[in-house]
């Protein structure tokens, strides 16, 4: 039997604000427990929340980045439930009037582009953190009140791969706006998934399950794949799906039902009386729109046109804003050879980031320094191999390209006279190889090139070396 897979994703994003959503406590990750709390986020009676204006700005920015409509008047609601890490007994969230709604992002999966609709983006606060020990549960309220955006997709995702592409796109766009790092390890991006199957083509949705605890994009993909198979097997053996909340068990690579009674989501939402409505003007939106950087899809298109590159290359360069900024900066300083600049950013800079486990914002070489190095490479003063070694040296020592090249006398030996002498000596010292070469073993040319490179520590010009060697080794007799 053929099944249609229906997936909807809820993404929680922690924002880069300095302070919490409704009080002036720090949001800094990794602080000592209960050191970033005050009467508001501890839920003391009588303490009143005051909205962080940066939260509103971030929410509207997220809306713009996802082609969402922005509500001119939105308000907060209380979501009521009891849990020890929620000291007020309710979470301030948005219910009826989320600040953004009806958006979309375009994803690309297996070379195909597709729009995924967004139902809503709303503002809310995080709860605290619980640590369960044998003797009790320990509570840290540093996270209590930290601002979040919840981004809810339409159930328009039809495979684990599409889910992965969707998450990547959301992350990329939000990082471009600068409102969040979207760092899953630090919990600044979290994801829940709703999933159901229905017979192919059927208009009615099947019963869905909710997957929680998906702490990496790969885990989302794995958990969805597992859950699709579980539901498929169950349905095909005549069973029925029961609505349930499932946890992904990373160790066992399987989903399991959450223990404890499901208090059938009954949060008794009502408007938060302590926070007046939020009004957003068209001016505010336009202003913010102008402050936001070019979004990755548009930037990619522009790179293809302006710098004459392939789509794949443009995608690599624009994947992270900092890399794209770096490249454009470099091209401004070194406009002579855009192709060379692209090659070095894509090859060497990304290699260095990966090797040193750095993020895109931590490129250890200034664009101006790389520009200087590329001048040498472009003029063929040094070989590309030497250039790479110089780059590593620049990383390690912070010295400029010119100084390293000068100190180590790395300028390429392109002087035929000097190379000529070296080559003569090598041929003289390799009579056997020379004879074999002349009798038709022309592969031995590589051996000679290798010898020259060895003698010159890789600074001989390849082209000239090859030309001189062929000249000097003399004609080859076939057979």
């Amino acid at each position, binding site marked *: 039997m053929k099944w249609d897979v229906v997936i909807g994703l809820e993404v929680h994003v922690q924002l880069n604000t300095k302070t919490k959503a409704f009080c002036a406590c*720090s949001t800094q990750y990794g602080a000592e427990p209960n050191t970033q709390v005050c009467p508001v986020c501890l839920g003391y009676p009588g303490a009143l929340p005051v909205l962080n204006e940066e939260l509103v700005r971030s929410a509207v920015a997220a809306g713009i980045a996802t082609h969402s409509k922005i509500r001119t008047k939105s308000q907060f609601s209380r979501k009521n439930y009891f849990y020890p890490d929620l000291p007020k007994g309710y979470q301030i969230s948005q219910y009826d009037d989320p600040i953004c709604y009806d958006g979309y992002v375009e994803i690309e999966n297996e070379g195909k582009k597709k729009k995924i609709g967004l139902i809503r983006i709303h503002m809310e606060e995080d709860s605290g953190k619980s640590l369960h020990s044998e003797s009790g549960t320990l509570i840290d309220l540093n996270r209590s009140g930290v601002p979040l955006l919840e981004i809810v997709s339409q159930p328009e995702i039809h495979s684990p791969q599409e889910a992965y592409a969707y998450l990547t796109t959301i992350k990329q766009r939000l990082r471009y706006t600068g409102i969040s790092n979207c760092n899953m390890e630090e919990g600044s991006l979290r994801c829940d998934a709703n999933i159901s199957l229905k017979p192919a083509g059927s208009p009615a949705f099947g019963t869905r399950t909710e997957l929680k605890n998906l702490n990496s994009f790969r885990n989302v993909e794995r958990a969805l794949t597992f859950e699709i198979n579980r539901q498929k097997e169950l349905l095909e053996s005549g069973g029925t799906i029961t609505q349930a909340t499932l946890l992904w068990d990373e160790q066992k690579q399987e989903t399991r039902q959450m223990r*404890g009674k499901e208090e059938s989501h009954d949060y008794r939402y009502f408007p938060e009386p302590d926070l007046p409505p939020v009004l957003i003007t068209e001016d505010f939106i336009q202003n913010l729109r102008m402050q936001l950087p070019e979004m990755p899809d548009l930037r990619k298109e522009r790179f293809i046109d302006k710098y004459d590159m392939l789509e794949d290359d443009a995608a690599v360069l624009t994947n992270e804003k900092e890399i794209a900024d770096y490249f454009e900066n470099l091209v401004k300083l070194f406009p002579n050879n855009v192709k060379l600049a692209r090659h070095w950013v894509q090859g060497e800079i990304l290699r260095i980031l990966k090797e040193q486990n750095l993020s895109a914002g931590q490129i250890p070489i200034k664009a101006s320094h790389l520009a200087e190095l590329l001048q040498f490479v472009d003029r063929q003063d040094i070989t590309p191999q030497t250039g790479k070694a110089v780059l590593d040296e620049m990383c390690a020592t912070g010295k400029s390209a010119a100084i390293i090249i000068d100190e180590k006398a790395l300028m390429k030996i392109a002087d035929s006279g000097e190379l000529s002498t070296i080559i003569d000596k090598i041929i003289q010292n390799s009579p056997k190889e020379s004879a074999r070469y002349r009798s038709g073993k022309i592969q031995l040319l590589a051996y000679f090139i290798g010898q020259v490179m060895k003698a010159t520590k890789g600074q001989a010009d390849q082209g000239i070396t090859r030309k001189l060697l062929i000249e000097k080794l003399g004609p080859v007799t076939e057979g």
Partner: protein
Amino acid sequence: MRIDRKELEHIAALARLELNEDEILQSAEQLSQILDYMSVINELDLTDCETLSHSIGQENVSRPDELKPGLPVKEVLENAPEALPPYFKVPRVIE
């Protein structure tokens, strides 16, 4: 409007209240009375009335994103019935 036993037990469970038999009957009766009393409002024609969620007419009250120090941990934990500094401690929550 009648609050039946099932509804009342659900509300009590949401509020984490443990009620005995007498309290269940009494609360159901009282809640029903309160709802009856409030239902007088339902008799008004409110078709052209916008839902009012805030009565004081304030809008856009916000603050700049500026940091202020929180409370010292000692003070934070002072009112807690139980603590394992720097944590609050509560009975074990079964996941």
